[in-house]
């Protein structure tokens, strides 16, 4: 998967977790927490959805990398390199 595809995957997961949020205009560099009302339960869901969809394991100490869209995509590039969108 390339950067764009990974971004699409995250968008899909976010819309599943927070269906009432309008995701158009989501800024890649601003923390999700500031743009959407996400809490720790929602972050766990991002991790769990990635595990469910692509069998990616994300250890708890790495959750910090998931704060913005940009950092999440960056973090996932090596993990999703061989995955197909």
């Amino acid at each position, binding site marked *: 998967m390339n950067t764009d595809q990974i971004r699409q995957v995250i968008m899909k997961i976010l819309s*599943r*977790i*927070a*269906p*009432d*949020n309008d995701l158009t205009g989501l800024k890649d560099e601003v923390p999700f927490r500031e743009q*959407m*009302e996400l*809490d720790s*339960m*929602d972050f*766990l*869901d991002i991790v*769990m959805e990635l*595990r*469910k969809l692509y069998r990616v*394991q994300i250890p*708890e100490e790495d959750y910090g990398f998931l704060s913005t869209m940009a950092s999440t995509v960056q973090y996932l590039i090596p993990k999703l390199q061989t995955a197909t969108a």
Partner: protein
Amino acid sequence: MYDTIIIGAGLSGLAAGIRLAYYERPVCIVEKHTTIGGLNSFYRLRKRDHDVGLHAVTNYAKPGTKTGPLSKLLRQLRLRWEDFDLTPQCGSSVAFPGVTLRFTNEFALFEQQVAEHFPSQIDGFRRLVAQIQQHDELNLANRESSAREIVSRAITDPLLVDMIFCPLMFYGSPTAHDMDFTQFVIMFKAIFLEGFARPHEGVRLIMRKVVQQYRKFGGELRLRSGVKRILSNNGKVSGVELESGETLEAKHVVSSAGSAETMRLCDIAPPEQEPYQPGAISFVETIFSLDCMPLDLGHNETIIFYNDNERFVYDAPAEPIDLRSGIICSPNNFQYATPLDEGRVRITALANPNYWMNLPQDEYIAEKDAWTKRIVESALRFMPDFRSHVIDTDAFTPRTITKFTSHLNGAVYGAPHKIRTGTTHLENLFLCGTDQGFLGIIGSMLSGITIANLHLLKAPSSN
């Protein structure tokens, strides 16, 4: 071999089950009773549908609200706002000698009522509300502290203190006289800051949506499957033995049976001391079907919390029932688009669990009838006389609650000491539900979600 076996198909067990099933964990819920529901159940009697437990769903929020417990749990369970069909209340009150405080789902009214009836207390009241709003009640590391002490620092009039505590205790205190402050905050937000709602169809709708979701994600549900024993060796659970003798193996067990009740299933003698002491607060509830709507009699309130004793006493009474205080609920008085088919009044009062547990069967029925009449007489001081309109009556007691839920003493709010982290002496046995500490319809589901997330989903699946 299951990843997880969940004991009890109440809202907490089903919510935990949805989380696990959604993330593809092989999960099985085992339920002793012939139907789902647990402490928030329903039944049919003489062609009438009744709710048990639920007077109202607390924690109401308007559709589309992004924060708060209700939106959190809908997101976690992948449910939509429409699924629960929550219709807001008409208005409720706390009625004490000489003063009545009204409240709705708009908190401003309650604040205004306090200012009007207790002008010297309003500044303290506002300080207390600010403190409540800042308190993170979902933090599992909160220490237990006395809510009465904290509230009395802000509010000096004992009447107002009692009037604030009355609905919160009636709707969720497992402890007599006082509450843990975190529990107090949960209930204050749930009742006064968020408020009441109800689906037109009652608790059935919520149960149905939740169990459908669980099944849709692949969860297995076994009714009439009481657990005889939780099997373990070397400090680890290996599964459960059912009352039928059948054994089910699992990597984890989550129990919503209650803490003392769960310890019994582990073959640990009924523990006499903390932390596994069962609760002792229970209720008798009377249900009246009417030949008219409560509104036709001039009764338009959703819920009235009443007390006419000088001080409000919340404890298991020495008498079979405490007639000084109670709760009047009319499921008709919500803002439905179409009215319910029939008028209903439910009146609930504190009961002495031992008395009702130990009555011989023939006396039990007669006593239930006699006390039902007394409860109504007591409640009539706070509502119009509806007795000539009653076409059907039912009542349940602590004994009924224990029979159908297996919760000791009919203690609907469980043990006085909550085990917030849900951990036990066995590393892969967890507690959820009433004795984990999040109460009410919304709280119980959040409890199941929290325990599933924290102990089962965060850990990488070993499948």
